[in-house]
């Protein structure tokens, strides 16, 4: 009763707001009163408020002292634990910071800065993937900036929307999006986004300005608008029915062959527009009973080209593009010309959510078969040369671990011979999964139904003028990473074409080999 007023007098003598005066509230003294719990609450509240103020002023030691006291007096107050977590983070006591974040969450704290704090702590600990996952689920502008810097697609999209809503701290948004673009290999976009950010007009600290300049120099030095990839594959194939003969007329024939495939891919980015080209060659060598199967010993090359143009603010959601592929196929070490195919057309791609894309393609296709075809002077119903149309709708998903697609395809072919006129459609699905750091497994299937014909006069012979076929395809593979970009590959591909007796066929190949990718 007596000490209280004395203390009041002492406090009033000291200058209000001065350091000793403020921090006296954080002295860890036992509470000895008739209502100890109420007093503990009051002292805890004051200590928490002072600790928060000290934190904002950058007095970390005082802040930790006050907030530690406040946590002890108010163990169930979530916001005090949040404040203490911030203070620990600023002091570099990262494990303690994570503990307090966890406690604050358990106590029901929903303050948005808690997410940002956790991202920062995880990042400081080098746990980047956890930091990215946390950022991708957060709504605060700063968490989204950090997420974009870490390559988060959701964060970059969220940031884009915020940039459009307001211009607040727009230069930080631009900086984060620039980092995102650099991660995507879009150096030109990255440079464009930070253009002028290191100028004196922008309110950056000298340290921040130096970092921005360093980042710009790194983009100039390392970011490439050319993105080349190469792949070489060499396998031994155990093949059933390499010539796709009717399984009812001929017993299934098997052979062994060597198969080589090489592919080069190049993307060139002009701003946000992506131009791409690729070339591929295939060569097979039959090892067993070559005389029987040499005609199907593929030697082929194909080239592809495409461009994709984004629409809207970076990072765009809608893309429009065009792609085309030409394939020329030979057999028997180029002594036989099997045929050539051109296929191409426009597409629209829409980014639906992080990793998800929907793609609609409209394609024209032309097949020109050569040495296995009757001569053009002969009029035959089984001539296979054709032109056709395709409409494809694909739902694509990709992240660090999974690459997957579901496709639907409509097709219509007009052939030189009536037997190969076709209309049909099908569905397909495939998935490729990073099972462990070294192992990728995947597989897929497709089912395609086609109605061929009509041959003859349909009005006279009715349903006999057309025939339906159902083609199924199943594939499974496993790749084991040996070292660098080299994998061991084990793969199986199986085709079953269900048709009338004499027309049906099946084929299968089991491949074992190596794939090297750069």
């Amino acid at each position, binding site marked *: 009763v007596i000490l209280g007023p004395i203390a009041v007098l002492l406090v009033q003598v000291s200058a*209000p707001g001065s350091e000793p*005066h*403020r921090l006296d509230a954080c002295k860890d003294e036992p509470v000895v009163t008739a*209502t100890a719990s109420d007093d503990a609450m*009051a*002292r805890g*509240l004051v200590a928490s*408020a*002072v600790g928060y*103020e000290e934190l*904002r002023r950058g007095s970390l030691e005082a802040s930790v002292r006050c907030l530690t006291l406040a946590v002890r007096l*108010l163990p169930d*107050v979530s916001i005090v634990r949040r404040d203490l977590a911030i203070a620990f983070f600023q002091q570099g006591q990262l494990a303690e910071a994570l503990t307090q974040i966890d406690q604050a969450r358990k106590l*029901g704290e*929903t303050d948005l*800065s808690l997410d940002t704090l956790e991202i920062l702590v995880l990042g400081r600990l080098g746990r980047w993937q956890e930091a990215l996952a946390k950022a991708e689920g957060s*709504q605060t502008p*700063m968490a989204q900036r950090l997420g974009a*810097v870490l390559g988060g697609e959701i964060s970059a999209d969220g940031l884009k929307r915020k940039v459009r809503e307001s211009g607040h701290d727009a230069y930080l948004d631009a900086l984060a999006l620039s*980092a995102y673009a650099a*991660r995507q*290999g879009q150096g030109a976009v990255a440079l464009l986004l930070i253009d002028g950010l290191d100028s004196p007009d922008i309110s950056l600290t000298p*340290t*921040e300005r130096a970092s921005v300049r360093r*980042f710009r120099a*790194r983009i100039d030095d*390392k*970011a*490439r608008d050319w*993105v080349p990839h190469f*792949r070489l594959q060499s396998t031994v194939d155990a093949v059933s029915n390499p*010539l*796709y003969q*009717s399984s009812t007329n001929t017993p299934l024939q098997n052979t062994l062959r060597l198969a080589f495939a090489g592919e080069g891919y190049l993307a060139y980015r002009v701003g946000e527009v992506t131009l*791409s080209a*690729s070339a591929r060659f*295939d060569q097979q060598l039959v090892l067993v009973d070559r005389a029987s199967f040499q005609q199907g010993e*593929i030697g082929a090359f*194909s080239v592809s080209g495409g461009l994709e143009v984004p629409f809207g603010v970076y990072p765009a959601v809608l893309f429009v593009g065009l792609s085309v592929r030409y*394939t020329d196929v030979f057999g028997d070490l180029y002594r036989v010309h099997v045929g050539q195919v051109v296929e191409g057309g426009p597409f629209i791609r829409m980014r639906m959510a992080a990793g998800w894309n929907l793609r609609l393609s409209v394609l024209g*296709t032309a*097949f020109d078969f050569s040495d296995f*075809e009757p001569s053009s002077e002969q009029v035959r119903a*089984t001539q296979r040369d054709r032109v056709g149309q*395709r409409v494809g709708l694909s739902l694509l998903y990709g992240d660090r671990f999974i690459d997957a697609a579901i*496709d639907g*395809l409509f097709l219509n072919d007009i052939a030189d011979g009536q037997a*190969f006129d076709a209309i049909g459609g099908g569905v*397909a699905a495939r998935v490729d999964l990073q099972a462990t750091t070294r192992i990728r497994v995947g597989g897929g299937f*497709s089912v395609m139904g086609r109605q*061929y014909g009509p*041959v003859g*006069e349909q009005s*006279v012979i009715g349903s006999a003028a057309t*025939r339906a*076929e159902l083609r199924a395809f199943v594939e499974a593979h496993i790749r084991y990473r040996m070292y660098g970009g080299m994998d061991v590959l084990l793969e199986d591909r199986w085709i079953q074409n269900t048709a009338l007796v*004499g*027309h*049906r066929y099946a*084929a299968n190949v089991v491949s074992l080999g190596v794939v090297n990718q750069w």
Partner: protein
Amino acid sequence: MVSNLSWLLIGLLAGSVETSRPVTPIAVVRRAESVEIESHGATVPPSTGRLLGAGERLVTQREGYVELYLPSVGTVLLFGGSRMQLLDPAVNEDWGRLERGRMWITRPAKPATETTPVNWRVGPDQVRLPPGVKVSLEVGSHSDRKVVVSIGQVTVRAGTRTPIDVDLGHVATWRSDRNAWVKMAGDLGRARLGEREQLRRQGDVLAARRSLVEWLDQVPFGTQDRAGMRPIHWGTSDVMGAIGGPAGSVLEEALRPPPFFETEVPAKGPNVEVEVGFEP
């Protein structure tokens, strides 16, 4: 007596020189800018750590801002040009009243002191705040009132109207002189304005900006280009699948048995021979 003196001492240690203290503090000032407290007929500027009790009124100037913490409620922000009063919860289960302007309340899912229910007055009307809500309250100059919910659900009681529940992302507006509610959906952006203002006022207490800039040094370039070896052209053979890629697809189409063999294809037309004779 001892307890009251302890409150006095604690409040003064925190920086207040006011000698007329509330008997039962229910809130503490965490941050205050351009704000005054009307307490027992006197007006004083608050400082960080000042304890507040029932009956005390806070008035913020145009650019003012005050952040309070109430163990039974959570965090309460009062924005510029606003006025609110703390109430005695023992009377009507009301912890405060917004008299003018705009405020924001964040109630943790597990409040430090579980007091159910918690109500806040918006003018004469009442908003019930369950745990885990985030809500913005407004009292306009023409007796119009507004509740915007960004997390959870609150219940609003106003006069003789039937109470209504306002859900996440919804806005309820009403006027004291009209007997109707207006409830609209889809204003999450506005609902989160309070939160954004809090973050802005809080400043970069996390030093997140420094980390953001530091992290730039570790950004790798183009390594996440997932286009990689994915085909540029996604065509028929890629969807249908083939042995040996696009080339294998061409070989299959060149060699496979045709759907009809040549001998199975009937000639066109009715194939009826008609002998025609001519009379001389």
